[in-house]
């Protein structure tokens, strides 16, 4: 059963539709991410779940109860704010206990539960500190403990990692996943960082200009995006314009500038102009012409070295440049080519996606 049902929800502000007819079902104990570029409406969606915004149309159900117009302080959800919003005039312990104190939980129990929550985020020793004596990462843990101590049905997280540096971010991602498994409640996280969403979430909703483009597991989202936008937004992708010339049981036959006529697997009818999508790491780069698969010859125009991988731009004789990711799995890999070399790029027809333009 869904813990959250977002049904036909639209939110209009003056002159702008922030969320356009969103439909999302989130099940209990799920780690759900809403991913999209800034201004796509993901934060508005989260604020509607928290109760800070009211949907213009549609309804939001939390645990079967319509909360569309319910005040934020009545909802069984708690939020970790992007700025953390830790109260600067209270100690860490008072911050964590705040939500219990104001709802009439006895002082002794408030203290005990607040201490437990601090224990959970490994801040038990800092209870008497003021927030301005904490680091950014510690403040975020306080915000987390403060929200979790209320034992909400859903925890909402608004861009929780955006103020942390790369190392700390990775550590917090692991920690959030651990916490979610430990407390067993639904997490809904809003982020513009695809790595964050891919590594933590069970399922991801990708949003663009107010619309939900696709809801899927990270693997499906990456390997089977259903639109050009999703393919392009999640990871890197080579998009090739193609003209559909025929279809069969095995797939569709398309005419591509680089390749000529090729047949790629695809179910469902398409016609006219389409995009062929292939991920850079699915492409092999060789000096000699490969025996199988789809192949393009071109000249290396750029070689960017990232340590574990290298990103190489290859300019075919006709058509747009393509990018290839090469694993540097031996120390000598970097010597295998340089800018100006003529190379062959090849990939399997199975790794090619056909997307609407």
């Amino acid at each position, binding site marked *: 059963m869904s813990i959250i049902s977002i049904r036909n929800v639209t939110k209009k502000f003056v002159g702008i539709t922030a969320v356009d007819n969103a439909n999302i079902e989130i099940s209990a104990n799920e780690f759900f991410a809403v991913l999209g570029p800034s201004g796509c409406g993901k934060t508005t969606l989260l604020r509607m779940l*928290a*109760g*800070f915004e009211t949907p213009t149309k549609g309804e939001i159900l939390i645990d079967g109860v319509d909360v569309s117009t319910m*005040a*934020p*302080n009545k909802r069984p*959800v*708690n*939020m970790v*704010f*992007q*700025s953390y*919003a830790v*109260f*600067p*005039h209270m100690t860490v312990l008072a911050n964590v206990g*705040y*939500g219990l104190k*104001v*709802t009439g939980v006895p002082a002794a129990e408030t203290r005990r539960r607040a201490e437990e929550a601090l224990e959970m985020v490994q801040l038990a020793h800092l209870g008497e500190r*003021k927030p301005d004596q904490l680091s950014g990462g510690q403040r975020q843990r306080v915000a987390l403990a*403060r*929200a979790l101590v*209320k034992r909400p049905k859903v925890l909402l997280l608004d861009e929780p990692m955006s103020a942390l540096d790369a190392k700390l971010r990775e550590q917090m991602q692991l920690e959030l996943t651990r916490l979610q498994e430990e407390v067993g409640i639904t997490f809904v996280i809003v982020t513009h960082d695809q790595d964050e969403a891919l590594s933590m979430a069970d399922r991801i909703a990708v949003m663009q200009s107010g619309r939900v483009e696709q809801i899927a597991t990270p693997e499906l989202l990456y390997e089977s995006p259903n639109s050009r936008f999703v393919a392009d937004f999640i990871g890197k992708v080579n998009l090739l314009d193609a003209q559909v010339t025929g279809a069969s049981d095995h797939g569709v036959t398309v005419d591509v500038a680089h390749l000529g006529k090729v047949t790629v697997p695809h179910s469902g009818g398409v016609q006219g102009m389409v995009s062929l999508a292939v991920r850079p790491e699915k492409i092999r780069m060789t000096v000699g012409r490969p025996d199988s698969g789809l192949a393009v010859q071109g000249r290396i125009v750029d070689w960017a070295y990232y340590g574990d991988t290298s990103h190489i731009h290859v300019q075919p004789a006709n058509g747009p440049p393509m990018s290839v990711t090469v694993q540097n799995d031996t120390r000598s890999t970097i010597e295998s080519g340089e800018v100006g070399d003529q190379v062959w790029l090849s990939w399997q027809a199975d790794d090619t996606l056909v997307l609407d333009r």
Partner: protein
Amino acid sequence: MESFRKNQGVFWILAGPGSLWLLFFFLVPLGIVWILSFGEKAVIDGKVSITETEITWTLANYVRALADPVYLVIMWKSAWISALATTLCLIIAYPVAFVIAFASPRWRPWLLLAVILPFWINLLIRTYALIAVFRIRGYVNFTLEWTYDSLWLDRLFGPFEPLELLYNDFAVVAGLVYVFMPFMVLPLFASIERLDRSMLEASLDLGASQMATFLRVTVPLTMPGIISGVILVFIPCLGSFLTADLLGGTNATMIGNVIERQFKAANDWPFGAALSFLLMYVTFGALALRALLSRDAGMRT
């Protein structure tokens, strides 16, 4: 700051004029008044002079001010009238400042202008305008009478009896609230505007009611503004004399009026100076209290 220490010449050029101004037009006159408070009327040819003052380092003026209960009573009354006016200012100004801080950026400058607009008119004229509002045949009584008559209450209870709104403590408090309101609104606005809205949302999100959010989050976080506003209103209220003079008449004398009378009508500068300094010590006390409060609140103002 560091560069000022390196370029002492620049420091003195910039700080010099202001320091000299403060020295000659604030500290020196203050010192003169302080010395005057230890003086007494000069005795010339065996007669007490009306105009001349002699510094004899006597404490008689302070003794007189503290010994005669009249002055302490007036000082105490001034303090509570000022406290009442300050409290009313705070209660009225907080929602006003809140509305301005949360108004759209297009409206905000106009609302702020409306708050400081009275400053564009001379205090004396504004105070006389209040007399026109509060007097027996003033606008308040006129409006009340019109309402009274419209409700046909005059046929039930007889003709309307105008309220005596002027020349009492009420008029003084009302006048002080009116005159010093902007000094409360502006610091409150500044601190409410700086308030991080997500703090309020976090409080609501954690289950606090609007009222609890206001008392436990909004008020503590805007405390620097509240303290500044209270000080900015309370201290001038304590020293004001024009409002009490015009609106309070002889029934509502404040310590400011007494001091003014010593310097002008009574021509007893030493005693006026002593009263001034007593008032200043009270003010210092209030400031010390503020420092203590803001240290307890644990925040910088």
